[in-house]
């Protein structure tokens, strides 16, 4: 079990309120991702749930029990840190055994769980090494192993992959997803990388300045962003947003069109512009178009290849029904 509920939670550091009153429910077994630009309060929120920071007001419930004043060690949660935070003076085996030793688990049971975790995480050959003798990816696995053996009611991940190189990050991302499918334990994952958020989450919580901008499934957020911030933050490359006369034509203060929802032609179309840079990736082509009169740059994503280059004139046409409209307050108009 691991249903986590935040009721009216706030957090201030001195006079600075980093989390204004906030309500959030994470269901048992859910993979929730907190995403937002740096400094948006997502890590603080995770630390509040972990108990590493005290709430300024409000309640935190885990499986209906109020844990607001309970110490981190008694909340039954496990956390994986960005810096791995392994105990450098202990071997991998002792690192993994540590939480069990603290909980008074019998030696035989400890050995059994260590063996199982090491097998699942490919660490069997490294059990007698110290963390200093491991690569970044292996260290992260040890940190995950240390979390798994506790059998926690929820896992908390604080940007666990940001210290890894790109290739390793993709691999670990898959492993964590598979681990979640297998264990069906609640996971809360903090990242600033919206690709991680989109690919891993059951539920994404988009935060800005401590405020929840939108909560929903990845595709909800993609297809129906609640406001301009979410529209710009979710999706890669980011959505093109225009205001002014073009938006007024659609009875909106701002309109948005995703790069992949725009057609390109060299002969005819709705908007005319000049190609600034064309990035040919083989599978896709990203075209950055200037002088459209809409915005400084309009980004377009075309599947496959198209023969355009710097200085060419192109015409852009938005796909029918793919224009997102927002009012003067930045909120979505349906």
């Amino acid at each position, binding site marked *: 079990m691991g249903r986590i509920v935040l009721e009216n939670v706030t957090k201030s550091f001195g006079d600075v309120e980093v989390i204004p009153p906030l309500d959030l429910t994470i269901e048992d077994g859910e993979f929730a991702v907190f995403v937002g630009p740096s400094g948006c309060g997502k890590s603080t929120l995770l630390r509040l749930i972990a108990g590493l920071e005290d709430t300024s007001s409000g309640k935190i419930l885990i499986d209906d029990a109020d844990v607001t004043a309970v110490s981190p060690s008694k909340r039954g949660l*496990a956390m994986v840190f960005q810096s791995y*935070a392994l105990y450098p003076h202990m071997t991998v085996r002792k690192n993994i055994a540590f939480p069990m030793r603290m909980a008074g688990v019998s030696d035989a049971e400890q050995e059994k769980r260590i063996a199982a975790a090491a097998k699942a995480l490919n660490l069997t050959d490294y059990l007698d090494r110290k963390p200093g003798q491991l690569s970044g990816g292996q260290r992260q696995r040890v940190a995950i192993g240390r979390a798994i053996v506790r059998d926690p009611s929820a896992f908390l991940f604080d940007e666990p992959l940001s210290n890894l190189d790109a290739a390793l990050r993709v691999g670990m991302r898959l492993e964590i997803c598979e681990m979640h499918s297998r264990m069906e334990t609640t996971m809360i994952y903090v990242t600033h990388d919206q690709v991680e958020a989109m690919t891993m989450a059951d539920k994404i919580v988009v935060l800005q300045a401590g405020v929840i901008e939108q909560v929903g499934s990845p595709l909800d957020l993609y297809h129906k962003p609640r406001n301009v911030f979410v529209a710009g933050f979710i999706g890669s490359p980011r959505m093109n947003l225009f205001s002014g006369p073009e938006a007024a034509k659609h009875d909106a203060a701002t309109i948005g069109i995703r790069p992949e929802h725009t057609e390109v032609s060299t002969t005819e179309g709705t908007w005319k512009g000049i190609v600034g840079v064309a990035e040919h990736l083989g599978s896709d082509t990203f075209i950055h178009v200037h002088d459209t009169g809409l915005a400084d740059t309009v980004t377009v994503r075309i599947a496959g290849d198209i023969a355009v280059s710097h200085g060419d004139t192109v015409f852009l046409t938005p796909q029918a029904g793919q224009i997102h409209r927002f009012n003067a307050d930045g909120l979505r108009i349906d």
Partner: protein
Amino acid sequence: MAIVAQTSRFSKIAWPIAAWAVGLLFFFPIFWMVLTSFKTDADAVKPEFLFFFTPTLENYLNMTENYDYWRFAANSVICSVFATVFTLFVGIPSAYAMAFNPSRSTKDVLMWMLSTKMLPAAAVLYPMTFITKNFLGIFDTHFLIILVLSLINLPIVVWMLFTYFKEIPKDIIEAGKMDGVNTWGEIREILVPLAWGGIASTALLCFIFCWNEAYWTVRLTTTDAATLSKLIEGNRAPEGLFFGRLSAVSTAAVGPIIVLGWFCQKQLVQGLTFGAVK
């Protein structure tokens, strides 16, 4: 090129000479003391016998036979060991609290602790003597000396430990909290093993300070708790200048600490430069 080569040849010779000069300068008083301890009192004051004299063990024999050296030495060991242990016992949790759970006044507390070192000891000599003798009845006891040595060293010990503990990533301590450790467990299982080098050098330095402390150990003891400092002091005053005897006693007093320091010098240097070269 030639200039560079010349400079490096010059510095290859000049630096070691300078280093040796400074080293010898520091070492000279100890060398002189050891040398003098093997002279008769008469020879000790004659400049022509500075390096060339007939060595004698008279001073050392005299010391153990007449002055009960071993009792003073035992007191020094007892007071220094207990004071060091007590200081660490109080200092480690204090430094831990300030390093990992700082409050707005942590800096002020640290400064205040250091400011107690700025108080001239002479200013509180009379009240200390008066109170311990007349009210508390603990004058000339091991308890008093251990307490005084602990208290005068505590600020510097807390400062040193604080600096070492600051080097430990906060994440590791927090991981411990998540893994179900209480505060004592964090100190025992994580902090002490990680900061072992720093703690050891702090302990060694504290021990040396306790061992060599003279102002209070001389003034707050008469016989029962008198340490080696008192023995040295006792050989100075009444009968005039007896440099030979004084040097023998001093050599015997600092001997153990020099040997200890020699064995721990790697640890000590590592500890003292810790943090300077992150």
